[in-house]
């Protein structure tokens, strides 16, 4: 219950207009800090829903795959330049962002991750790594402005953010592949 409460607090903090305004003023903070933090808020709140509706999750997400698919769809949707623009210009889309990322992506990620096999987890991480490299490439070398609301320099910064995140995930995958924690623990 405690962590769900903190999750709710985090969501309220992120929705608060000065915070939201500041985070959305930089493209990279918008996509790489606000959005993940919304997902994290949802992951914290997931505990509440898991306890409140155990049969729902058991029935619809018994092996984790439906949940993770929902997560992927929501997250990929929010990576499109067009949707970010829309969130800034249309209020209803902004509201959808604040609902979809925590409640559809965050909750389902928390419920699904432990149910996935290690193969499933690796597929997800590798998939996002490839996607991030692609998006990094797109944002860094795109000759035109992709978002109406952000300048090209913001776009390039975001691209580097994507590439670095991808490098981080490759390091993680390599670490997982080469090092067996059970040899040490």
């Amino acid at each position, binding site marked *: 219950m405690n962590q769900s409460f903190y999750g709710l607090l985090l969501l309220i903090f992120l929705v608060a207009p000065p915070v939201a305004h500041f985070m959305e003023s930089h493209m990279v903070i918008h996509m790489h800090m606000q959005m993940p933090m919304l997902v994290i808020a949802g992951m914290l709140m997931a505990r509440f829903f898991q306890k409140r509706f155990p049969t729902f999750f058991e029935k619809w997400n018994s092996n984790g795959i439906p949940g993770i698919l929902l997560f992927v769809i929501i997250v990929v949707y929010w990576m499109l330049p067009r949707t970010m623009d829309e969130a800034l210009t249309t209020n209803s889309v902004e509201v959808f962002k604040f609902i979809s990322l925590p409640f559809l992506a965050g909750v389902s990620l928390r419920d699904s991750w432990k149910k996935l096999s290690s193969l499933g987890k690796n597929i997800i991480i590798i998939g996002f790594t490839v996607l991030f490299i692609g998006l990094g490439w797109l944002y860094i070398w795109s000759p035109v402005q992709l978002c109406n609301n952000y300048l090209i320099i913001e776009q390039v*910064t975001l691209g*580097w953010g994507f590439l670095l995140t991808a490098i981080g995930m490759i390091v993680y995958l390599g670490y997982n592949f080469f090092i067996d924690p059970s*040899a040490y623990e």
Partner: protein
Amino acid sequence: MKMEADLKVGIKEKANKMLGYHPQDAKLSKSYIAVAFIALLVGGFLGLLQGLNRAGLLELPTWFNYYQVLTAHGLLLILVLTAFFTIGYFYATLSHNLGGLLPKVRKLAWVGFFVKLVGFVLAVIPILMNEASVMYTFYPPMAAHPVFYIGLALIVVGVWLCCIGAFIQVANWRKNHKGQHVPILSYFATGVFVLLFFALMFVAVEVLFMILPWVFGWVDGINVMVARTLFWAFGHTLVNIWYLTAVSAWYVVVPKVIGGKRWSDLLTRVVIIALVIMNITGGFHHQIIDPAINEIVKFMHVFMSLAIGFPSLMTAFALFAVFERTARRKGGKGLIGWWKKMPWGDVRFLAPFIAMVAFIPAGAGGIAQTTNQLDQVVHNTMWIVGHFHLTLGMSVVMTFFGISYWLVPFISNRVLTPQINKLGVIQTWIWTVGMICMSGSMHYVGLLGSPRRTSYSTYGDHATALGWDPYLTLLAVGGTLLIIGVILQVYAVFNMMFFAPKGETEFPIAEEEENATKTPYWTERWGLWIVLMIIVVAMAYVIPLTDMIVNAPPGSPPFKTW
């Protein structure tokens, strides 16, 4: 007769094993510590020359000018002394804690030792030729002779080898001790070597890919802002590596010396983890005056810098808790009366204690400088010089001195005699008074506007500049006391290393308290902490670095300003 001799050898080996003493490893640490204190001696004298010059008492000859002296003083004391001491101390720790160094680890550390020495000699030659008076920082567009940078690159490689050796040693121990916590002092060593490893990457990129092609003339210009940013990602971390090394002795050794217990193992490990994760990004507060970083980013970095202050507050709390508990157990009474129960006559306590107390004003000064508006006032003044003499010259170096009074006897198989202890206490007080005079006057004269990085000048007898003179004289007085301290300290170290009576010295590591709660195992997950560190670094650096690279002005050619 032979049997008796064999028996003696057998007993000696057994005693060594009990004490965790490994002769070959001790030789390694001894070599490192010896180089560190020779560097202190030479660097100390160069510091005296600078102090006397700044006071207007000594005109340096043209063939050995102020900026050469400054470069050499900085190189010797902030690179050689600290790096060699840290590595010598932590390798002795790893050897003692983890059952002796593996042969390949020892070999790596020796190779690292000689690579560093060669690098150091290469760096010194251009300084002596007045071809590298760049004041020991790698600040383009000031450019030194290429050999200077090649020497520095070799020092980096040497330190890297020592980092890798330490990682191999710790990984091997963990494989053989599954599920156990790495002993606390080796845990500090792991944190320090992780930080060193990653911090050096920034400066390696700067030197290898930016500065060397530029000083060789292969490229026309250099991106000054990117170079400075990479330098400070390393520079700030290096500062905190010294600090973390000193802190390790405060947490682990000092409680043992005063006859107490360690207060909280978990808190200690969390402090180390927090410092490792948050450290590198602190580099930005050294660049508050740099024009090419916008104010929003600078304000963001105030948070990041102040975050590093938080573990230090935890440290202060934990240590004073140890002092009070120990003193009260020994019968100390009253709100302040328990202070009398502390071993004030023991240099192994006194030196680190004064170092710790010095960190209170030093840390407060650091917080002031991190604040944008306050830093605008002091950034290019002697205040900053005072600050790092208070932090490095007092908090860190006095702790190193305190460590030397048991570490050097330990690795030399000798004992600390009461005479040397007394000498150490006298040295500690001389150093304290000297540093208060010098650092205090530097701080104050900085507030009055006296600039740093310049030799003595009255600016055409300008009234303001003449008003600095009394403080600059006090600075020289402090510097003179300090050189007496240096001589005493170096004498004590070499006496303990080669001339003190033979005997066994204990490696002082305090136990945990009896009712201590078990430390959770997640503290051992270094993979996770390193990933978090990389994320924090990415968060801090992506926005400003992209801006500096994409919106870069034309690069700067090399300048020789001297």
